[in-house]
């Protein structure tokens, strides 16, 4: 009798061990998938944390491109884009636009002249509920080739080690092309004179299912009047926002949306590499900015200009950045919307 009780107990303990192992292995698989067991994994949270200035992030604001101003207007499609993509935004017509002019810096209070790169967030909506979002910058090429390189750049530029940037530049020769642009390209004193580039490549799908890899740019109609950084600084720390509000108040400002199609063999997976200048470029319409509004109460405030929000007829390409940007923008969005109390809305909108 005692022996049979003993063996029954043994069987029960054996069963309990089996249960513990199965449940434990399930929990471990979950923890691994969540990245808890692999601290080396590059996560969107790490990238967003690395964007923060030494004093910490500006609560309630975008974690990068933090200083900006909203606009509304229309995209006047001329119909030429329909040969490249079935996206409804390319059918001839006028579509409402929400956008945001911004500076590529992490502080909303920084002076205009401290930002070498400017940006534009843009959303084009068509009546069938399709939405096309894009976030473009004035640099013609991205500083680095991969999201990991971008993280390394953030770490190096924020590092106290005096050799960190030197080491980074040595490991990332493509960074030199960006520095070349940053140090030689003219500055402007108006967002209206800036050209904004997608940099990343995307795939357009036409009516017959053909794929074309493209990049796009918004080319200003206003002519460029160069200004030295010193002179821009003299106009005040927030000159760009008041200038664009005044300018659009007097007359709508326009940009031509130009789509460039890659040739076979062009480097489509690396936004730090420009394509040759002779690539087929099609003007598909005009962006008309009709109204400018301060961000605090503006329609762009709570829009995430995630470049992977694409209408049917467009897809991401083998460029790794849109996915990385989407993941990181989501973290930035979730944080800043949770901190809305730190960035109060004003009682009335009005012009700045």
């Amino acid at each position, binding site marked *: 009798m005692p022996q049979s009780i003993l063996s029954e107990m043994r069987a029960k303990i054996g069963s309990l061990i089996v249960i513990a192992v199965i*449940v434990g292995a399930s929990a471990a698989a979950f923890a691994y*998938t969540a990245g808890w067991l692999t601290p080396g994994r590059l996560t969107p949270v790490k990238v967003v944390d690395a964007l923060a200035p030494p004093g910490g992030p500006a609560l309630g604001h975008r974690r990068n491109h933090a200083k900006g101003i909203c606009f509304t207007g229309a995209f006047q499609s001329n119909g030429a884009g329909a040969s490249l993509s079935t996206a409804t935004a390319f059918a001839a017509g006028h579509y409402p636009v929400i956008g945001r002019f911004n500076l590529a810096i992490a502080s909303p209070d920084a002076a205009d002249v401290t930002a070498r790169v400017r940006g534009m967030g843009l959303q084009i909506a068509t009546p069938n*509920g399709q939405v096309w979002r894009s976030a473009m910058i004035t640099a013609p090429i991205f500083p680095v080739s991969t999201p990991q390189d971008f993280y390394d750049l953030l770490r190096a530029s924020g590092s106290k080690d005096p050799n960190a940037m030197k080491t980074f530049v040595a490991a990332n020769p493509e960074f030199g092309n960006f520095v070349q642009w940053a140090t030689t390209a003219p500055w402007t004193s108006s967002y209206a004179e800036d050209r904004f580039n997608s940099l990343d490549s995307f795939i357009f799908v036409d009516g017959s299912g053909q794929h074309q890899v493209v990049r796009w740019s918004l080319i200003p109609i206003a002519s460029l009047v160069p200004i030295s950084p010193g002179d821009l600084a003299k106009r005040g720390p927030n000159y760009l926002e008041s200038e664009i509000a005044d300018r659009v108040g007097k007359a709508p400002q326009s940009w031509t949306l130009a789509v460039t199609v890659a040739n076979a063999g062009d480097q489509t997976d690396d936004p730090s590499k420009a394509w040759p200048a002779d690539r087929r470029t099609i003007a598909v319409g005009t962006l008309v900015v009709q109204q400018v509004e301060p961000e605090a109460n503006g329609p762009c405030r709570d829009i995430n200009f995630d470049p992977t929000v694409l209408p049917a007829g467009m897809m991401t390409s083998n460029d790794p950045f849109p996915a990385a940007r989407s993941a990181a923008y989501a973290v930035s969005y979730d944080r800043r919307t949770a901190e809305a109390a730190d960035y109060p809305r004003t009682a009335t909108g009005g012009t700045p």
Partner: protein
Amino acid sequence: MTVARQRFTVLQRALHWLMAVCILAMLFIGVGMVSTLTPKYLTLVQIHKPLGIAILVLALIRLGVRLRDGAPALPSDLPEPMKLAAHLSHYIFYALMIVMPLLGWAMLSAASYPVVLFGSWHLPSILPLNDGLHTLLWNAHHYLAFVFFALILLHLAAALFHALVRRDGVFATMAPISMRKVK
């Protein structure tokens, strides 16, 4: 214990195991996608949305079937606290299966993200753009996901406890195949 126990109906068992696969995939995709910024991120997000809606539809069907077909009684010798835990966990499972997809859908709506399922197929927005609502829904979706997974682990442990330790036939009520051959 020798009495042959009634099992869940074939439809209930099919829904249970199909949804078990879907929900586990969903939870792994969820924690996996927010921890990466490789192109896998977009693939996982693109699966997460339609799969969530599929789970919502299946859960509503399953709730209807459960109300129609009922469930086999638990063994009479099962201690009361375990009976209570079993019943309570089932209520929570049904609530989570229905609420989690709705929270995800509402959270995306409150952030003005288009809820794309396939190609040009998208769901309407169910809430206006609102940062406070987005935060509330995001937190609920996030934390309830961990509650959901913890409850699944508990459910798995309890099912195995019935199958291996108590051998009371409870596991057989939902087993995908008849347990008679196994015995």
